[in-house]
């Protein structure tokens, strides 16, 4: 990796913030999807 110069911490923080944010977003959406599907299954819905 090339050196990031004097402002490395800000660059790092920006990327870390965005990717943590994306991770949370994806995690939440996937979790929500799983939860709803599990509940549907317990009700015996076959259409997935």
């Amino acid at each position, binding site marked *: 990796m*090339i050196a*990031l110069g004097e402002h490395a911490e800000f660059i790092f923080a920006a990327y870390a913030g965005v990717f943590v*944010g994306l991770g949370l*977003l994806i995690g939440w*959406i996937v979790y*929500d999807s799983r939860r*709803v599907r599990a509940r549907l299954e317990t*009700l015996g*819905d076959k*259409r997935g």
Partner: protein
Amino acid sequence: MSIDDTPKMSWWNRLAHPGQFLAWTRPLIWPLAGVTTALYLLGLWFAFFNSPADYQMGDTVRIMYVHVPTAWLSQFVYAAMAVSALGTLVWRHPLADVSMKAAAPLGAAFTAMALFTGSMWGRPTWGTFWEWDGRMTSTLILLFIYLGIVALWRAFDDQLRAARVVAVFTLVGAVNVPIIKFSVDWWSTLHQPASVFRADGPTMPGSLLTPLFVMFFAFTLLFVTLQLLAMHTEIRRRRLVTLERRAARGDTL
């Protein structure tokens, strides 16, 4: 309920039926996720291993590769929501509601990221995290509008009824956003802060544009993927509510 065996339907009707939409778009999720991941890896490689520092801003220009795509999405998602709102109001398209609802939290998230990366960029370049500059300020207001829409969705008990009301608000917001932008620009030029340094001066060299474009597509595709997934969940959630109520009334499923 199922109408799979109906002879021929136009693609529009086929898409209009939530069950059909699910069946048709479900296979797209994994390929989309794969392409998105690949683009992100490529973009990150460019950003950190294969792009030069800007002659003016130095290495901080690398923040641009996450800032500009999120800033672009913050506006694009609103446009998508406004089109869906039209779909709800004019064509009563059942998927438009679902799409509108799925997009709102995504838009809020991307807008928040644009603000965050912007302030991470602002600190090294301007010396402050925040400046009341026109573009940043109107992005902030856009974030408030997104969050308001999310709160509005959550406040309704009956999501079917919510859709049309939220659609009206989304459209009024869309009409208002340019007015807000204009007024904020007018206001911040009145009090021009001393040393605002904008990056969009000289045309960017290609070596900066390649990673920008890759990241741009990566973010946009991510949005598309998440939007599809969230729409699927929303369709299933509505089915779930129906089933639960039916079970409560004692109907056979």
